[in-house]
């Protein structure tokens, strides 16, 4: 998260780079750091994925258990998303209940999955009004080197796409793969020194203080958006960011989530 203090010299340096059309690690403004994705890394989980985005590392585990449905949707499954910003991952993270950054992260990942309707909640009903499958998406940040949002979102959908509903364990028939109908991908852009940069690293996140996360679906629709951080954005830049995001999300989807 971007609440660490940054020296003026460092910030000036980043400005200087931007003026020369450069980034500290040599990327172009819309270029992502190298992404690697591994699924099925946690055998105890029903679905899991480890994402590396540059040096940022995130582990997402999905557990699926039978439980009670919500009273206002008695015949639909339940999704519960949680993020742990554990102190191991950054000097800025502290132990204790999730702070607003953790809550926002979890809710944005949740929004992507939910609003894209990628999970058919009707298919997760066991006994209407009594028993449904509950999907726990747990995001564990291991190393925060910037943009844990995109890494978490990618990890979540990858873990879901490879998850199996553990029916046998609960005497509910054979295990079956969790049906995933859409592939939401979150992409984050910061505005800094008048330019738009995709996939900010820690320094860029700190210097820019405002970012826009756009979550798009496989057909290029926007299913979630959130401006994060204490600065404003112009409408023109928002439009540009949405265009960049659609394109980047498409690349990520094709490269890592192609089914």
């Amino acid at each position, binding site marked *: 998260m971007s609440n660490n203090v940054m020296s003026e010299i460092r910030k000036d340096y980043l400005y200087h780079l931007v003026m020369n059309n450069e980034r500290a690690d040599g990327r172009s403004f819309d270029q992502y750091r190298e992404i690697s994705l591994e699924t099925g890394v946690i055998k105890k989980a029903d679905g899991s994925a480890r994402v590396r985005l540059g040096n940022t590392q995130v582990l997402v585990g999905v557990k699926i258990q039978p439980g009670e449905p919500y009273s206002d949707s008695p015949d639909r499954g339940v999704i519960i998303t949680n993020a742990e910003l554990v102190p191991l991952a950054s000097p800025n993270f502290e132990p204790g209940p*999730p702070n*607003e950054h953790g*809550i*926002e992260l*979890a*809710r944005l990942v949740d*929004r992507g999955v*939910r*609003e*894209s309707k990628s999970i058919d909640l009707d298919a997760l009903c066991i006994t209407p009004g009594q028993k449904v499958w509950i999907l726990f998406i747990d995001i564990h940040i291991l190393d925060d080197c910037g943009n844990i949002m995109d890494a978490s979102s990618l990890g979540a959908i990858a873990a879901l796409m490879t998850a199996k509903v553990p029916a046998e364990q609960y005497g509910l028939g054979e295990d079956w793969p969790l049906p995933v109908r859409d592939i939401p991908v979150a992409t984050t852009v910061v505005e800094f020194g008048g330019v738009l940069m995709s996939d900010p690293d820690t320094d860029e996140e700190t210097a820019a203080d405002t970012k*826009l996360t756009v979550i798009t*679906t496989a057909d*290029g*629709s*926007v*299913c*979630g*958006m*959130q*401006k*994060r*951080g*204490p*600065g*404003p*954005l*112009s*409408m023109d830049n*928002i*439009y540009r960011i*949405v*265009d960049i995001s*659609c394109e980047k999300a498409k690349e990520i989807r094709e490269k890592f989530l192609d089914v």
Partner: protein
Amino acid sequence: MDDKLSFFKDGIRLDGRRPGELRPVKIEAGVLERADGSCYIEMGGNKVIAAVYGPREVHPRHLQKVTRAIVRYRYNMASFSVEERKRPGPDRRSHEVSKVSREALEPVILTHYFPRSVIDVFVEVLQADAGTRTAGINAASVALADAGVPMKSLVSSCAAGKVDGQIILDPMKDEDNFGEGDMPLAMTPDGEVTLLQADGRFTVEEMREAMETARKGCEQIYEIQKKALIDRYSRLEDPKEEGSGV
């Protein structure tokens, strides 16, 4: 939403509005005695009150920033404000709403005048009817001005939504619950966006249309906010009202 219910009848919404029309908005500045600044707003069925305290000393002290004031924003829903009683106290949703609302106001507050202090914004939702966060931001913005906090401008906020494939302004409860998308936005009068969220499903063209629609709503709300502050002053000025004999 599967029971093919239509949100329009002859192009008019179920509550009688045209697609680009706001619900009635009523704003009153300076409604609380103890607070340094306050505001009450009704936006459709939403009834929201905002109070500002500060700049004042920060407790605990380690939260102080030596170069500027910090801003805290607490969005809270009264347990009786919704259909089914809400458990009192903050939940995850209200933490998130508080965060993005604070970030919607921070761009305009001139915090550098008040190093080491805090500006506290408290927003209580007394009755909820879709759009509570936008109502809260509108009220908070007026309450900040009322408290004498230096600002670059006010911030105005409202949402656009999508129902039956059409973009609408300021969704009411049913349109929010059963519609295809919701996009709350806040902006300054010169068009800087300070809050943007979206859920549902929008094509890129729809997203742009929704933003333009919300912008028009914000412009109308801005005029109402402005009038509320000017009316408060004439209330202060009118000697008849307080009957002190002067």
